[in-house]
């Protein structure tokens, strides 16, 4: 063991905090990017050197989530440096990066802490630190979107607090590691687990409490949308899963997630704005992962592959959206055409990230989804299985039809996109392909 029990998790929380302090000397952009690299390194170290349970509870699942958060934090900080050098910004650059760091710290805190009460605090803190990020490009619509985000998510998370009180009432403890290894039986625990799905589900895109999601994703600047879609929603999903472990309500979770996927597929059919389209795709992916977690066993593996792959592909999709917005000054799908001619790198990034987000083979998300669908079938959830398959096909067609139209339809635009921003989007969208390739190699080894 290189570090003692708590040093490494504390260090992971401290590095972005230290980067934030440079706020005073005006180097926060660079400090945030460096902090991102260090954080990725530390999260990998955490995999090798997991601390014993105590103040923190870190297992392989939380390590993967921490890796996702640190990676998207790093890429988003790089993208933000370029993005805001070309966009009007309402809050100062320094304040933006300060909030980005605080947002990351609150997510990492939620993933590391060994207490459900403090997890709740962490989730609420993510709202506080990220709300102002939505209004970075201040306008009437973004103010309304930020307000909807604050009020809907806060009201939902407050509802989730009932589940925390009930857990404490029944068990007398809120320690995560104790509770998930216990076998308490009570109807109030059933209620707590059900309430947590609707309460924390507000933040992770569960129908019908998802309504802030398309608004915030479409109005936030692209690097913030990438953080929301790629890691914020999965962090909320992580809390739901941890509470679910106390008293699994498999049928309820599978059915609610199925309903959410069906609804996301319906909403996607008539979307005319590309950022809202990707937001609903996030809702679909989160709920497929929720089914995986609820099914357990291989389902969890599928959910983790899906979430890891989704975080990069959706980050790529939102970075590409930011580039397109720069090119066309419009969020409407119909206003974007001839992307491949005008900006081939962004076009490829958009195509790849859409394939990744919609579970196209051989992207990582495809394998994740296949494992989950197989588990669903194997555990005799036949109706949800059929509904989910139909919805996934519908989502695939909706997204890729629009993206193909944006990419290959004739059109001319003379604006230019910054090359660094294009490359960041491209790298993000290629990672899920690499994940898929790695899985194929592993499968080859097994055969």
């Amino acid at each position, binding site marked *: 063991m290189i570090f003692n029990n708590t040093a490494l998790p504390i260090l992971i929380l401290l590095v972005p905090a230290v980067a934030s302090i440079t706020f005073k000397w005006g180097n926060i952009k660079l400090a945030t990017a460096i902090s991102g690299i260090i954080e990725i390194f530390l999260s990998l170290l955490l995999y090798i050197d997991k601390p014993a349970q105590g103040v923190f509870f870190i297992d392989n699942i939380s390590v993967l989530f921490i890796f996702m958060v640190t990676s998207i934090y790093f890429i988003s900080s790089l993208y933000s440096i370029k993005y805001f050098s070309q966009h009007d910004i309402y809050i100062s650059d320094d304040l933006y990066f300060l909030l980005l760091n605080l947002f990351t710290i609150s997510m990492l805190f939620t993933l590391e802490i060994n207490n459900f009460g403090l997890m709740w*605090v962490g989730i609420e803190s993510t709202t506080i630190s990220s709300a102002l990020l939505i209004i970075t490009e201040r306008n009437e*619509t973004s103010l309304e979107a930020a307000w909807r985000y*604050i009020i809907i998510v806060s009201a939902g998370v407050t509802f989730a607090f009932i589940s925390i009180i009930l857990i404490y009432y029944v068990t007398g403890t809120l320690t995560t590691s104790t509770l998930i290894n216990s076998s308490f039986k009570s*109807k109030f625990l059933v209620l707590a687990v059900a309430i947590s799905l609707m309460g924390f589900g507000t933040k992770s895109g569960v129908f019908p409490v998802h309504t802030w999601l398309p608004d915030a994703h479409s109005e936030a600047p692209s690097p913030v949308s990438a953080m929301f879609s790629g890691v914020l929603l999965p962090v909320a999903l992580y809390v739901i899963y941890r509470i679910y472990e106390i008293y699994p309500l498999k049928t309820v979770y599978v059915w609610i997630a199925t309903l959410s996927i069906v609804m996301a597929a319906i909403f996607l059919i008539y979307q005319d704005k590309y950022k809202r389209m990707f937001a609903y795709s996030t809702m679909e992916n989160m709920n497929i992962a929720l089914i995986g977690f609820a099914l357990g066993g291989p389902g969890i593996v599928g959910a983790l592959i899906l979430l890891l792959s989704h975080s990069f592909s959706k980050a790529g999709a939102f970075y590409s959206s930011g580039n397109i917005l720069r090119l066309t000054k419009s969020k409407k799908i119909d206003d974007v055409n001839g992307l491949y001619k005008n900006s081939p790198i962004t076009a490829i990034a958009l195509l790849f990230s859409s394939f990744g987000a919609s579970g196209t083979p051989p992207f990582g998300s495809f394998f994740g989804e296949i494992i989950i669908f197989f588990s669903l079938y194997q555990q005799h959830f036949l109706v949800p299985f059929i509904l989910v398959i139909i919805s996934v096909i519908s989502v695939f067609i909706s997204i890729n039809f629009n993206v193909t139209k944006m990419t290959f339809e004739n059109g001319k635009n003379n604006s230019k996109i910054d090359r660094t921003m294009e490359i960041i989007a491209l790298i993000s969208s290629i990672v899920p392909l690499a994940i898929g390739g790695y899985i194929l190699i592993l499968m080859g080894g097994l055969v």
Partner: protein
Amino acid sequence: MNMIQSIIFLIASMVAISGFYIQGIEFIIANIRGQSIQSILIAVLSFIMGFLERSLDLIILGIMVVILRVILINYFLERTIPKKRKFSVEKYLSVPYLLIVDLIFIVLSVILIYKFVFSSMILRESIAPSNILVFPLITFFQGMFLIASRKSTHTQIIGYVEEENAMILFGIFLLPIPLIIEASIFLDVLALVVISSIIVLEKSEHNPVEDLIG
């Protein structure tokens, strides 16, 4: 029910009644102060229970409610109302109509939830019958209804704080959660109100926006 239990019951019922007061008033400043009164009542309950059960945690909780909810939240929200708009009202409101809908919504939800879920809960001796849980439930749904029924940013924040107040009350009656967690929650809510008050300055009312439909 002995006398102390009756007093606790009475104060808890006043918390719920303060929720109806907030719902029925159209002056924004009166709404903010209504929230302060509600928080004072919760602090008083926390003090009484703290002395009864010799629990320092409950007494500290009461002090936190006074400082953070009664004083600071009130201060931050009132500061966002310009002096000349001290008597601003939500003009479009039809108070009698809202109160009737509110009453139907609250009575139905609380009766159903209490009857099927919470009636079998066993509370601590000092609190006695579990039907006291009806009051935090009423307060919670009041907060929810306030958010749903109003367009003003201020009133929606009050609705959110009211929901949080209900959670404190719920915790006090069931089993107070550890103080460190409670303190973090208080600070979180305060920070959220501060952030919200920034938005209040930019946008004081909320109506459907075409770009956010669908």
